[in-house]
Structures are given as structure tokens and as C-alpha cells.
């Protein structure tokens, strides 16, 4: 498998405060990686680091849903493709969206069960719905790699499984921070566990059981 991105002895931090140390990590095309670990371990920092490397090829699902609350769900999802249209077309879509775009966004929203909210303001959605809209934006984006920071944390396990399935189906490579152990084991083929800024475990998902992960969750 060809390597997609390689980190060698990488470290990173905020304002001089180191968060990650000595990270050696190679991610290959086609892998579905679950990044795990307790909160504060450095998962988001690792994802930001990978995103910075891969920027142009990534559909990102940030931790906070990061929707523009005053715009409709349609516009928030459409934003996933702003860079693929000329600016005048984007301005026009703000006021009078073309039939074609509406249909396509609607189809994407159907995947996450939000089609009925197409023209509702994003600010009126519940937390879980906002997260699904954020996922829809990434799906609509259609780039080969998806990086998601807890993309299903506000959903129940059944909905979460469904959405993860969609994400993995649409994108070649998926790098997702998660905290739900059974969900991660079911959908990822590789687990990377971060503990106190270092990689504590990096193994194929089929060789790992839920019991192996308990120590990293302070249980």
C-alpha cells in the first residue's frame, strides 16, 4: 500500500506548550484509522497536524460542528464545494441557488437523515442534527480523505454506526478521532491510541479487543 502521509519524530503544541512528542506515524491510502485516547491526550492536535499536511485533499469534520448558524443547512453543506465554483456563482447561490445544487445537497442530506431541514437555519438545529449537517458537508465535499474529530459523538450508537458507514463508503481514506470503543472496533481497520502526547498503541483493529483499550481510558 502506498503511503499517504508520514510523520517522523513529529511534535506539536500550542503557544510553546508541547502536546505531542516523538510521533512516528505512517498512514496508507485506503486505511480507516480510528484515533483514540482520553480527552486531552492530543487526538485533536494529531488530526490538525495531519490536516495541515494533507489540506487540499481533505474533507474535514471539525470538533465543534462549525456551522454558520445564520445560514440555511443547504448553504452550510454547499460550502463544502466553494472552491470548486467561480466566486460569482457562489454569490449567486447565496441568493438564488440553482436547481442542480439544491438536488445534490438534498441527496447528500438524505444520507444523514436531514433532507427535511434543507432550508432551515443551521442555528435552529439540535446538537446532533448540527453534527450530521457537518458530516454532510464533508460527504458533499467528496475529497478522497476524511479527517473527523469525534464526528459522531453527539449521536446514539445506531445512528453513529450508520454515519460512519457512509463516511467510510464515500472517502478512500478515513482518519477519525473516536471515543466509543465498540464503534471504533467495528468500523476501523487500524487503531492508533494516544496517551499523554505519545502513541501508546498502533495495531490492526482485528488484533485488538475492547479489554485492551480500557487502560487508556482511565478505567
Amino acid at each position, binding site marked *: 500500500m502506498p503511503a499517504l502521509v508520514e*510523520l*517522523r*519524530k*513529529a*511534535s*506539536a*503544541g*500550542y*503557544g*510553546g506548550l508541547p502536546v505531542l512528542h516523538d*510521533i512516528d506515524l505512517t498512514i496508507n491510502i485506503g486505511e480507516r484509522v480510528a484515533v483514540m485516547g482520553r480527552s486531552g491526550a492530543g487526538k*485533536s*492536535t494529531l488530526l*490538525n*497536524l495531519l*490536516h*495541515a*499536511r494533507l*489540506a487540499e485533499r*481533505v*474533507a*474535514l469534520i*471539525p*470538533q465543534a460542528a*462549525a456551522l*454558520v*448558524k*445564520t*445560514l440555511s443547512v443547504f*448553504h452550510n453543506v454547499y*460550502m463544502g464545494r*466553494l*472552491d470548486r465554483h467561480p*466566486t460569482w456563482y*457562489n*454569490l449567486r447561490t*447565496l441568493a438564488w441557488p440553482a436547481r442542480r445544487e439544491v438536488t445534490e445537497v438534498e441527496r447528500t442530506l438524505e444520507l444523514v437523515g436531514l433532507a427535511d431541514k434543507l432550508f432551515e437555519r443551521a442555528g435552529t438545529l439540535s446538537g446532533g442534527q448540527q453534527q450530521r449537517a457537518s458530516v454532510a458537508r464533508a460527504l458533499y465535499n467528496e475529497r478522497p480523505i476524511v479527517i473527523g474529530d469525534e464526528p459522531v459523538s453527539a449521536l446514539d450508537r445506531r445512528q453513529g454506526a450508520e454515519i460512519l458507514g457512509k463516511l467510510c463508503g464515500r472517502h478512500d481514506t478515513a482518519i477519525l478521532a473516536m471515543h466509543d470503543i465498540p464503534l471504533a472496533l467495528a468500523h476501523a481497520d487500524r487503531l492508533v491510541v494516544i496517551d499523554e502526547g505519545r502513541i501508546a498503541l498502533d495495531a490492526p483493529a482485528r488484533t485488538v479487543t475492547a479489554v485492551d483499550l480500557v487502560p487508556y481510558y482511565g478505567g
Partner: protein
Amino acid sequence: MTRPAMATPSLPLPTLGYRSVTGLFVLIAIVALALSDLAVSALNPWAEMRRLVAGLLRPDLLSIEMMSVVWTVAFAVLGVAIGASAGFLFALVFARLRAVRLLCAFLRSVHELFWALLLIQIAGLSPTTGILAVAIPYSGIFAKVFAEMIEEADLAAERVLPAGTSTIARFAYARIPELAPQFWTYTLYRLECGMRSTLVLGFVGLPTIGFHLDSFFKQGHYAQAAALLLAFYVLIGTRRLWARPATIPILIVVSLLVLPEAIGGGSALANLVRFVTHDIVPTPLRGADLLAVTTWVNAAIWLWPILTQQAAPGVIQTLLLSQVALVAMGAIALVLFPLICRRFAGRAGQLLGRVALVVVRSTPEYMLVYVLLQLLGPSMLPAIIALSLHNGAIVGYLMGRHADALEYRPDAPRGVNLYCYETVPRLYGQFLAYALYRWEIMLRESAIFGILGVATLGYYVDAAISEFRLDVAVVLILVTALLSMTVDAFSRSLRRRLRIDTMPTRLSEAPSGAPIGRAIGEEKLACKA
């Protein structure tokens, strides 16, 4: 023109969103624009404009009349000090006494220049006039702002005080320490506004900077005018250096020592008595039998033409001007703010924006209208330009600060896409809060511009005063105050309905520009991979 929106503030409108409010205001402005007189009547505006710009670029620094600068500051310091002290006392009972709230609303709804025109009748062209013209309306403003600060204060400390603590001790221990820094910040910021006000008072004859600007502009001595303006900008730009809580007592004492002598007027007390008991009493009521029906019939006959021939056209023109200027201001602000925003313009743009703001916000609109009127001839155009530029720059600056404080997701779009899809939609509520807040301020300014010859309410007030018909002037000033209070109340209810009434609106509480919370964008990530 009527104001369709004003007629129905209490009716339940089903969908009052940002979009419909914006559309409504734009529609009203288009109608108003069609009804406004926008002619450029000056014969050769460009030649005069060239002379103006040439003069402004070569300021004649030696010609600065130092005492006028000193008096501008002195009047402002004393006026703001008295206004802030009175406002503080009002603020203590603001929430409890409706009468105080109404009084303060009235005091601040009458512009400094109108107060000055009335005070000149009592105290002549004296320091008293200059100081009180600022102190009176400012006390109303201070009362409201201080009261809002008291209301919003964090009362955690007060709750733990022992039950028997007296009101005064409670206030001194739990509230004052919490509020003092805010009060100071706001008061010192107001000093800046006060200096702009006292500068403008010179245009009606007080010995401040405006007095000399008036004669320089009239004679076309633009280099001298530029020097005075430059001195003023430096004063405003360095305000944080010389006006601090520690220097205020010194400033007050020095201001008292340098005050000029009063010119004419005689005994202020005798004038005050004459003013109250004779001058402002409606002519038909002076010395008449107040119990006779005929007296009141005469009063009505006297009042009717004032209302129909002066107040009504004045109100209409004032509204036309303020509605057009309000929408133009909004457009200018939305176009300007990316220019001072780090994300769009970079560091250099930001610095340039700060300098531009000091210049624009220190330039009193009144003076800008005055200059433009000389260049373009009498019509509403100069007033629209001046009002929308001045306020547009202020709101644009504030919006830029908010835009800098926004956090975008790491994969956010750039340029025009970012502006249209993220920045403006996310800040639009804040933008409307600023615009609706400035609406009332712009209305008051619109009325005042009448003194310069635009046919708004101030035109009729000024005419009445120069004919020494002070009773008529007072009626017209009351109409102005009523109009401004109506717009204020309407703007407030609109902001409440749009749920933007808790957003910041004052220039003194501009956000610092630093992103709130922890940075997550990749540009903030110190990456050493």
C-alpha cells in the same frame, strides 16, 4: 413620507428576520432618496476641492491659535466631569425612578448644539455655556450607560455580604470596585466625544477650535484649517496618554484656571429669570389670563402654523436624510470592514485601518457637512455623504474587530467566499445591532445639520432663534427630542425582536481583536514536525 415600520411595532409580525428588516430599511431609503434634494448647485466644485486638498496637504503649523485648542480641551474636561458626576447620581436611582429615566431620555435627545443655542440666551458666549452644553446632554447619556453597567455587573460578591449591611456599604464594597474600571474607561472615552462636541460649539461662536475653523474655511485658508485639525487629531490620538484616572484631577484644576472671560450677556441670573418667565413662554400666553378660554384659543392658533409649516416639513426632511444616510452607512461599513481585518488585509491593512479610524471618527460630522456644503452647494447630498462616511467608518472599524475575533474552522474558504459565506452571515446580527443603535444618533445629527442650511429641523430652530422667537425654537426643539426618543424606542424594540439587544453597541466596548478561547486553526499550531 410615512414610516410604515414605525406604525406597527407592537403587532406580532410573523417573520421578522435579518433579511426582512434589511429589505425594509433599504426600500424606505430608496423611496427617501427619490424624494430628497440631491442637486449639486456649486458652479465649480472641483476647483474648490483641489484648493481644499492642496491646503490640507500643506498644514500651516505656525498659525495654530493655541488658546482655542486649550479651551476646546478645558470645556470638554469640565463638561464631561460634570456630566459624568451628575450621570452617576442619576444612575443610582435610574432603575427605580421612571421620572429620572424620562428626564435622562429627554436630556440626551436634545443635541449639544441646541443646548448651546439656548444657553447662549442665558449665559452669553461664556465658558458656562460651553461647559453646560456638553454637561447637560452627557449627564443623560452617562446615566443610561452607567445604569446599564450596574445592571450587568457581576453580583456574586454582593450575595455573600452579611444580611445587615447597609445599602451604601453594600454599594461601596461589592459594586463600586467591580464597576469603577468600566466607569473610568467609558468616561475617558466620552472625553473624546466631548472634545468633538466642544470643537463644534465654536461654529456657533464659542472660542473653541471650531470658531477659527469656521473663519478659515469661509476665507478659504485651508492650510491654517489643516493645522488646527491636525492638532485636534493628535489630541484625540494621544488621549490615552494624557487622560488617565490619575491625571483627571490635574486636568480639571488646570481647565478651571485657564477658562476665558465671558463675552457680553450681563447677569446670568437675571437672564435666566427672563428666559424662563418670558422668552420661552409662548407669545399668546405672556401676561395673558391663563383661565380665559380665548388665551388658549390664541395659543392653539399660534401653535398650529408652527407645527404644520415648520415642524412637519422639518421632521420629514430629517427622516429622509437619516434613512438614506443609515443605509448608505451600512453599505460603507460592510465594504470597509474587510480592509482593516487581519484575515483579509493582513497586518499592514490593520494598521492603516486604525489610523484611518482615528481621523474619521475625530472629524466631527458637523464640520464635514460644513466643508462639503461649501464645495457642493446647499442640498441634502453633503449631509448624506458626511453622515454615512463618519458612521460607516466607525461601524466598519467595530465590525473589523469582531471579524478578527472570529474563529474559523481550519478548512474555511478564503477571500470573497469567506466574506460571503462565513464572515458576514456570522456577524450580521452584530452589524444590525450597531446600525440600529446608530440610527438614533444619526437622526439627532440630521436634525442639527439644519443649522448649516439643510432643510431639517435644525434649520427652523436656527431661524427661530435668529428672529429671537425663542418660544417657537423651544417648541421645535421639543419636537426634535420627541422624534429622537421615538426612533430610539423603535430601534430598541426592533433589536429586542431580532434578539440582538444584548450585543455590544458602544464604541468604547469594541472587542480586542484577539480570538476568544483556544486557537485551533492550523496557523496557530506551532508545528515542528
